[in-house]
């Protein structure tokens, strides 16, 4: 459950610094009209699970990106690859939620940077989307820096599936230049990614919205 883990990160951030402003703010958005009719039960459900959702947003499918922008969303999480692609193209950084992560409880928010995970290369890279992607990454990086290397509630992992060691190395350095210090790195060199991903158990998959970091 990505929200629970995000809350845990917030808790730890506040432990480190009770005056912390840079916290995760969770907004639940749905375009499904059936779900909107059930709005009352959704709100109750989130309360019952102890999820601190600050805002609920119901919008029509055509307008959901506008809603994202109106709400100043810095990272849009979804299990739907198409939604993620659309949002990225319009300048809202998006990440895929791992459908399996609900079944794997974790004390640590695991963020995976995976080149070409779902979105085709170059498809999402407008100047606007790159800029917002980079600024979001920088913020993520800052949050990570508030914790030490050991026992951190956030963990950044890089997986490169296609290139060799040099392309992985340069991605490591590019991310570092943006302020994101990756904790774990896996260079697959064409080996099947399934077995490795099933071990990594990421909550969030950040991919080609953040492509072309050298650009």
């Amino acid at each position, binding site marked *: 459950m990505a929200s629970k883990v995000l809350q845990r990160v917030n808790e730890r951030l506040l432990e480190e610094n009770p005056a912390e402003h840079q916290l995760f703010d969770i907004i639940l958005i749905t375009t499904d009209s059936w779900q909107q009719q059930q709005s009352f039960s959704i709100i109750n459900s989130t309360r019952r699970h102890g999820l601190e959702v600050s805002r609920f947003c119901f919008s029509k499918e055509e307008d959901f990106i506008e809603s994202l922008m109106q709400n100043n969303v810095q990272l849009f999480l979804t299990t739907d690859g198409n939604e993620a692609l659309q949002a990225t193209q319009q300048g809202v950084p998006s990440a895929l939620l791992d459908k399996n992560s609900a079944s794997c409880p974790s004390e640590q928010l695991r963020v995976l940077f995976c080149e070409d995970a779902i979105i085709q290369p170059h498809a999402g890279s407008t100047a606007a989307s790159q800029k917002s992607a980079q600024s979001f990454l920088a913020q993520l990086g800052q949050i990570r820096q508030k914790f030490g290397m050991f026992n951190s509630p956030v963990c950044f992992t890089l997986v490169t599936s296609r290139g060799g060691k040099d392309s992985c190395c340069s991605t490591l350095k590019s991310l570092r230049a943006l302020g994101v210090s990756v*904790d774990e790195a896996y260079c697959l060199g*064409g080996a099947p990614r*399934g077995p490795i991903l099933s071990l990594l158990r990421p909550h969030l998959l950040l991919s080609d919205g953040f492509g072309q970091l050298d650009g």
Partner: protein
Amino acid sequence: MSEIKAEEKTAGENSGEQDWEAAKAVFDSLKTKVPRPPKPQNAVTIAVSSRTLFNMVAERKLYEDEGLEKYVAFQVEHENEPMKPGPAFPFVKALMNVNTRLRELYPDSEELFDIVLMTNNHAQVGVRLINSINHYGLTIERFCMTGGKSPIGYLKAYMTNLYLSKDSEKVTDAIEEGIAAATMFMPEKESDLSSTQLRVAFDGDAVLFSDESEIIVKQHGLDTFFEHEKEFENKPLAQGPLKCFLEALGKLQRKFYAKNERMNCPIRTFLVTARSAASSGARVLKTLRSWGLEIDEALFLAGAPKGPLLEKIRPHIFFDDQMFHIEGAKELGTISAHVPYGIGQKYNKGKLIEQPKKK
């Protein structure tokens, strides 16, 4: 330890194939003509840890004395300085040489060695590791930097045939999971090793074979052991943790034989055993034969120390289950790898050692 790597049918097989094809495109486009690494199921995968590949003794001390953050900061500060070679370095270079020869004879085959860096170093240290790998021109294109997590799952994901590490706990875990593994030691003096032939030496009991016979020696003495081995001469011994690795080497050797390269084969294997040829040797040779495995040279020491003989053989790596033999080999310049398996772990120089309570 599966002899044949089963074809992995995962749900993401389509994306797996896409990655595979895309990887070919990426590697083909590189200016330095580095071939795309083989599919894990076709290759003999050797996983080496960072401390076996490179000499990181000083850095390790820094980590132990001053903690993780200082250690990582130091590595990042020095990331453009290549590290010195570690105990597995000559072995890796010898593997690369075999690959070159294999590619000459079989340009389209994927039956090659694939070397994977398997470290639980933090990814930021990875930059220095990759720079060092590039400095020496090592063909290592795959790696896992697990940032502290156990490598066992990743070893399986890469279908690892052999895992080399400096950390005996990880090695023990790997062996318990059925992966051939050994803890490497740096020799005390330098040795001139072949640059044209990979030479691998194995102890017999509790390395290639199970420890069933060693149990008899330890518990009932040598005489009982000799009687037992004579009686059961024709009954093959059970297999030990390194048997599958010997088998993988044999498979590659036969590729050279098939092309009339037996005299010039770049892989040579040695059995170096404390058994004596006359009284207990036959069972060993018959067991190997029953497995369809060949070993190029079988040396029966009848209890004599292994060090001097190994000094003559000059293997790139020598596997033994008993620290006593590892020490002897190290002293005389042999790169040794301890296999923590079997009853030998409970004894030192023939005496039962007190086992520390498990944490």
